[in-house]
């Protein structure tokens, strides 16, 4: 008997808007002094009212468009009622049945195979405060920091389309990449601005099971708030194994919420199905329903820009890069843009492939290296493995005879013609094979 893991994800991403989801407080809470960034609204003081952040709504729709989601013309906020010390109002403002974004998809590539992961919905809500368990004067206390309370939080819910740990891994990394490309969040797992909750069940498979149209198991185990890609992999792997052992012992796993204990690498039960909250959702009366005109959506569409997949394809086509190199270059938007900046600063002396190699292999610090400087470095460094004298002389002679027009032009005073000749020589011998200044001297000598 083999087992087919069935996995779905809920991913939370904090938006990096200037202000909070429903108030004017700054959303920057990472390592800030506790409770220094609060107001009556995000503290849930009596009488305070939420006013939705337009930018956060637009960014959520932008993400939805990037994930090919349907954008309904109408959306609204709801109250999710539950009492917890980090939730100052006693309810969270979120979205129940009219989310900002409906069904969409994200294509991933795993072990050379393409697969589409369906997105069920994307909605917008407010983050909660943070509870810190600590000791003051020998007494164990729980402290609440409301700096994070009211930070805009996007929740992306997928269909249970994942069949392996690897698929999840590729998906969450790609999602993070897209979020960063859109510039709507740092999506830093370690800062808690991206958090992942996988739901896992496993299905015993025999030879006769139709794996294209499977019937999902009648339970699922949700693992709460995991904050590193590695832990996501470990938690899912552990859970698959735990459930397999249960089934093989003749037990049936139950619907559960579990937590991942990072130190031990195990998941532990937190809540059974019977203990599930009744959140008593109802439409948020403090915020009128939202309506979107097609023109608004169309305008947002123009703001998506080139996403990693498109950029990669263009780099391969336009610059003749390999899929591998192009993939590495587009890993971050900054790196991809840097690559094109370097390219734009030079006149065909150094090949795109060479620039790509340099950026990838030398791990260039793109923040502190101006494109011109990188170009110089590439050209300078080519002194390291010169082509042997005879070979070089032959190539130069050949290039000069093939480009007699350019030679004449240079002789009649056109400096640019020399650069063309040099470029052609470099292309012929390959980058990394000569110092540019030395080369210029040799070529000049040959022309005279």
């Amino acid at each position, binding site marked *: 008997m083999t087992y087919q893991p069935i996995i779905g994800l809920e991913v939370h991403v904090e938006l990096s808007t200037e202000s909070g989801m429903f108030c004017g407080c700054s959303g920057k809470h990472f390592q800030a002094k506790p409770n220094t960034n609060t107001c009556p609204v995000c503290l849930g003081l009596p009488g305070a009212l939420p006013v939705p952040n337009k930018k956060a709504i637009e960014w959520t729709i932008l993400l939805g468009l990037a994930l090919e989601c349907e954008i309904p013309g109408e959306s609204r906020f709801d109250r999710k009622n539950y009492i917890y010390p980090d939730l100052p109002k006693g309810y969270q403002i979120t979205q129940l049945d009219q989310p900002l974004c409906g069904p969409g998809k994200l294509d991933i590539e795993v072990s050379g195979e393409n697969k589409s992961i369906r997105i069920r919905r994307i909605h917008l809500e407010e983050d909660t405060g943070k509870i810190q368990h600590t000791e003051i004067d020998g007494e164990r206390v729980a402290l609440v920091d409301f700096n994070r309370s009211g930070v805009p939080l996007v929740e992306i819910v997928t269909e249970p389309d994942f069949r392996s740990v690897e698929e999840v891994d590729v998906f969450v990394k790609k999602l993070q990449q897209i979020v960063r490309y859109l510039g709507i969040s740092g999506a830093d797992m370690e800062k808690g601005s991206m958090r992942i909750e996988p739901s896992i069940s496993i299905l015993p498979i025999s030879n006769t099971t139709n794996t294209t149209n499977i019937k999902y198991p009648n339970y699922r185990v949700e693992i709460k708030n995991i904050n590193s890609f590695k832990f996501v992999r470990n938690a899912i792997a552990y859970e698959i194994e735990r459930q397999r052992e249960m089934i093989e012992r003749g037990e049936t796993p139950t619907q559960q919420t579990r937590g991942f204990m990072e130190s031990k690498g195990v998941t532990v039960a937190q809540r059974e199905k019977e203990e599930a909250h009744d959140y008593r959702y*109802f439409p948020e009366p403090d915020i009128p329903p939202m309506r979107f005109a097609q023109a608004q959506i169309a305008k947002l569409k123009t703001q998506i820009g080139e996403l990693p997949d498109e950029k990669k394809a263009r780099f391969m086509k336009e610059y003749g890069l390999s899929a591998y190199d192009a993939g590495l270059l587009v890993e971050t938007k900054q790196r991809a843009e840097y690559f094109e900046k370097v390219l734009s600063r030079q006149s065909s002396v150094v090949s795109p492939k060479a620039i790509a190699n340099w950026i990838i292999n030398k791990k260039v610090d793109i923040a502190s290296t101006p494109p011109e400087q990188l170009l110089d470095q590439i050209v300078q460094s080519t002194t390291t493995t010169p082509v042997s004298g005879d070979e070089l002389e032959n190539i130069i002679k050949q290039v000069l005879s093939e480009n007699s027009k350019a030679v004449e032009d240079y002789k009649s005073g056109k400096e640019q013609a020399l650069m063309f000749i040099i470029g052609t020589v470099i292309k012929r011998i390959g980058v990394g094979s000569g110092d540019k200044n030395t080369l210029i001297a040799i070529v000049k000598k040959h022309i005279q």
Partner: protein
Amino acid sequence: MELNTLTLTQAIEGLKTRTFSHAELIAACTDRIKSVEPNIKAFITVNQKVTNGIPIAVKDNFNTNDIETTAASDILRGYVPPYDATVVRKLKEHGMMILGKTNMDAFAHGSSTEASDFGATSNPWDLERLPGGSSGGSAAAVIADECIAAIGSETAGSIRQPASWCGVVGLKPTYGRVSRYGLIAMASSTDSPGPITKTVADARILYEMLAGFDPYDATTGHQPVTSEIINIKHLTIGVPKQYFRSEAQNGVNQRVLDAAKVLEKLGARLVDLSLLDPEYAVSVYTILQRAEVSSNLARFDGIRFGHRRDQFNEENKRRIMLGNYTLSAGYYDAYYAKAQKVRTLFINDFHKAFDAVDLIIGPTSPSTALKKGASKDHVMFGELQDILVEPSTIAGLPGINLPCGFIERLPVGMQLIGPQWSEDKILSVAQMYEEQTLWHTQRPKL
């Protein structure tokens, strides 16, 4: 003339002409408070730091920076907010000052001001009777001349009904006309702050001061606040038979019909009207309001504000429990969702009515002020007292209470209801009625 008996209009004029000073005006009110408060108990807190401005009494569910704000609940006893409600901020910006915070049913749960954790307020017309509620403290303070004017809030009747029982003017603006920011929420989808005053002119001054879009309240409207005077001669006023109920106290319906005749004499055309029975509005309002209450009061979780949840009073607890029940899985569709549908029927019913008439007239309350203790052990006391104002409340419409007579030395109130954003029309007609009558000049002997 004692300065505390002045209307807001007179106070503004007197200060402008330097007939008296702010200090004298304030002293007159604080002296009056000293002499009558032991009997009336309209205030929870009297502001000791007042120096400048026209003294306005504000219901204790509006946040006032640096002044204790309790919503008349033990849960918030001692709570001093760090910010002003938009209403309070605007009052201050217009030269008003917060004279004190008035009594109310705790968290505005009630129509008697008996359900206050700070003790009941007495009706100045008869100290054995209730002032109505939940803005009972504000209405009592106005008719007792303890202040120049007052601010109340209405979720369903809480301005108009105490104004009716105390014999003062009470305007409930269109939902979304006056910002709720800083008003401790009762039912968010109907809460409407408004003025309680000695005259219609005063109500208009405060209304224009407070109305308008507020960036801190997403439910406020952008409609411009105008101060148009509309001629009654071209108006049609509907008299809905469902509002003149047979179970009303003897004499109430007649006083209101007499008032309608006054409007007719002024040139208005009266027409009979049939509206949805207000009884159904009671059911709709009860469901929606309890649901919103259960959520709005969840923040008083015992962790902050210094008091445990068992300090909610009986009425608060009943509403929280009923609200939680109607929102529970499996009951939501039967109660909350259905109530919203019926609410839409009421909205449509009024739309249809206002195609035919400009304003609607009816009694505000089926009775004059009831004896103290009347609300005790009557779980639905408030809703039945407010039956005639609940339909317009759930439809978000503006309405005003005007004194229109007395029965055994107790005031009777009539209401004028208009379509959304029709405050100008309501205030214009109310003004013309008031000019023809002397009911608003009557004062209890204290």
